[in-house]
């Protein structure tokens, strides 16, 4: 895999410095695949998509340092050639241009800045778990680095992890160093029928079984599990899973191999699965403690009539991530998520004024504002994208 080596950091730094001098905010953009995520705001474009290339990569160090504009598709292809993967399986989502054409342009910078992790998250960790170091342009227009290329590094505050999920509001990511994992030799997807309650009970029981599970989904009364290991281990694991189901969940049928597995997990990861595309209903992401009971059946707020006709929930991460399609008002969804010890974010089919993220407690928001003011004194990095006033 050839990735274009193109360092435009000097040009980017110049643009940031002039934005600081003129107090003109910047809208930081990579592959445009996650433009929908966060609030809209007016600002001059800072385009990172040409800032590409591998700065260092030695597979045996289990670490890669890569420029932020590098496409995820290219990065993953390179890692795959070396039998390695990004542990957090970042969603690409896709960029749809104004003619309706779809582009796989998602960048590693966008994946880190939004901190969104994919199907593997519950089993091998998140984007923030995998980050080892960053190089950024800070609020003074300086190029600075934090963290590094080694697993263990506790010198100074952990500003590299702080950058993950900060939605570009604290600095411009120029490059990132990420911990890698060996790529499992094979994947096997196993599916079986289950109601939502049964699915949550199965996920619960599987948490302490030591099967090589790397992804889980419940949708349309079917559980799908992805197992990743050598051919021989997958075979014994399949048998172990069925024995376990037989013993603990005798009413469930045994798990069968699903053959179009590659495209299925990619659809789940990138939200091209019909659950996400074939609806005009608002789509919410609920992040809840994994053992949280079945949400739609216990809460009248979501038990709408059409729940019986089309499946309006898709559950991932062994229960910790739940996608809900619902026209229920935002405040009710937020309260519902909170009542389960979690939170809701508004993903798709939002109105122009709908915010993506739930409000923070006032004393917590105050600390966010103080930190933002210190790290971005002129308020030029993606202002209001995450929260109004931040």
């Amino acid at each position, binding site marked *: 895999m050839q990735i274009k080596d193109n360092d435009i950091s000097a040009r980017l730094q110049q643009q940031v410095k002039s934005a600081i001098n003129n107090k003109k905010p910047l809208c930081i953009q990579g592959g445009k695949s996650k433009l929908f995520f966060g609030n809209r705001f007016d600002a001059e474009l800072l385009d990172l998509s040409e800032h590409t290339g591998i700065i260092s990569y030695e597979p045996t160090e289990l670490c890669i340092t890569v420029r932020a504009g590098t496409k995820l598709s290219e990065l993953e292809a390179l890692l795959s050639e070396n039998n390695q993967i990004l542990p957090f399986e970042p969603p690409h989502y896709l960029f749809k241009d104004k003619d309706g054409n779809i582009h796989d342009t998602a960048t590693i910078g966008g994946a880190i800045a939004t901190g969104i992790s994919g199907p593997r998250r519950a089993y091998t960790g998140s984007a923030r778990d995998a980050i080892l170091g960053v190089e950024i342009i800070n609020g003074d227009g300086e190029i600075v680095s934090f963290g590094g290329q080694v*697993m263990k590094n506790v010198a100074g505050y952990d500003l590299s992890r702080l950058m993950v999920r900060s939605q570009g509001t604290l600095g411009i990511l120029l490059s990132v160093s990420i911990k890698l994992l060996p790529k499992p030799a094979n994947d096997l997807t196993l599916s079986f029928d289950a109601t939502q309650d049964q699915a949550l009970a199965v996920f619960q029981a599987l948490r302490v079984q030591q099967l090589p599970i790397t992804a889980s989904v419940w949708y349309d009364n079917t559980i799908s599990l992805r197992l990743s290991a050598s051919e021989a281990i997958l075979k014994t694991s399949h048998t172990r899973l069925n024995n376990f189901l037989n013993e603990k969940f005798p009413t469930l049928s045994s798990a069968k191999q699903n053959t179009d597995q590659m495209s299925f997990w990619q659809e789940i990861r990138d939200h091209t699965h019909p659950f996400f595309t074939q609806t005009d209903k608002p789509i919410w992401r609920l992040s809840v403690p994994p053992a949280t009971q079945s949400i739609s059946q216990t809460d009248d707020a979501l038990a709408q009539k059409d729940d019986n006709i089309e499946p309006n929930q898709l559950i991932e991460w062994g229960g910790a991530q739940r996608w809900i399609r619902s026209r229920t008002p935002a405040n009710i969804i937020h309260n519902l998520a909170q009542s389960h010890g979690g939170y809701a974010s508004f993903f798709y089919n939002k109105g122009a004024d709908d915010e993506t993220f739930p409000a923070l407690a006032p004393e917590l928001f105050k600390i966010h504002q103080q930190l933002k003011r210190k790290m971005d004194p002129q308020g030029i990095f993606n202002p209001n994208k995450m929260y109004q006033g931040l």
Partner: protein
Amino acid sequence: MHLDSNTKDALLNQLKQIVAANYLLTSKEDLTPYECDGLSAYQRLPVAVVLPDTIEQVQKIVQACSQLKVPIVARGAGTGLSGGALPHEGGIILGLSRFNKILSIDTNNLTSVVQPGVRNLAITEAARPHGLYYAPDPSSQIACSIGGNVAENAGGVHCLKYGLTVQNIQQIKIVTIDGTLLTLGSETFDTPGYDLLALMTGSEGMLGIIVEIVVKLLPKPHAVKVLMASFDKVEDAGNAVADIIAEGIIPAGLEMMDKPAIHAAEAFAKANYPLDAAAILLCELDGDEDQLEEQVIVVEKTLKHAKASKIVIATSAEDQAKLWAGRKSAFPAVGRLSPDYYCMDGTIPRKQIAYVLQKISELSEHYDLRVANVFHAGDGNLHPLILYDANIEGELKTAERFGADILELCVKVGGSITGEHGVGHEKIDQMCVQFSPAELTQFFAVKSAFDPDSLLNPGKAIPTLHRCAELGAMHVHNGELPHPEIPRF
């Protein structure tokens, strides 16, 4: 730096209202046990030691100190190795040892809510009946407390596979300098807003006081195997580490010891270590039994190919414990060779192991001080133990210079001055080598967002630009000095 007597009286009067008299220590005899942490080369007496046991008391204590501008140094079990809990002469020690309760264990979500003074090992002991454990295992785990683990982002021997403290906690409650109680993180896999949980982890008590922690628990692996490989050349052992990882295997633990460390450990623990080897590797694999069997075959083959002269596979728990006993007793074992030793904590890219060991041995000759090396080789975290005698005048200083050279070497080869012990008081000068003035300025900006008057553990972890300039160790990037407007002496 000392507290004037009016402020001191006002402070003590206020503290008396908050905690019972026996939990407010002020006499010299009572304060002396708190004069240092695990880095005993540095000692200072604080003005007072306060030992609250409720969050409300902590809030009131912090508010009192905040109003009177009195520095606060938080302290857990005091086992830290970098002087992070070294007292401030004009401040108080806020001891959290009475926060020693495990509040709950959630066997459905695999978490546990604990107070900061709970010992690391006590969490695993409480979780064991449920088939669960807490993964980070710093060598002091029998004594060190979880609040300190979070403050220092503690590691251990299983970090390559299971991560450091930051990857193994989900939520903390902190008291900020104005006395506000904040919850950071959540019991879910992510939380809206900035990742302040990560920022707080490893911040060495400089951004807030940790008063409650939700840790993640893991199911205990079904099986464990330990392999020991001997090598005639240190270089071969270093290469073997990379080869194992190249095979797509992530060992639970991968430790390396050099000849002096092997000899010391063997004399102490009788672990059957090969005394003729230049280095040994200990490789622990864990997981499901089938997967494990497959991995043992691959690792054994890889080690042979990497020129291991001898390989021992310990399958019984007893044999495994014996092999680990040598490694785990390496520090006290080395302690028998010399009146004093100085434990370093740099990290390096794995490929640099052989080169760095060679350089360390050259430095050992240069300074005429012996050194024994134990490594968390899997994650490139080295612990050279420099042997010296504090009773010989100047030898501590020589040992410290030797140590500083090692840390600078780590930075030079692309590593870090500290992998798991923290910067604290000890490595503050080496921070000037690892970070540029612009980077240090950024750290101060973060600090001031949380603690504008710099009352939380002042003087630790982040050196002032002034200090770096005086040291002559200013890191200059591309020949430009950032912030030319700031005076430097």
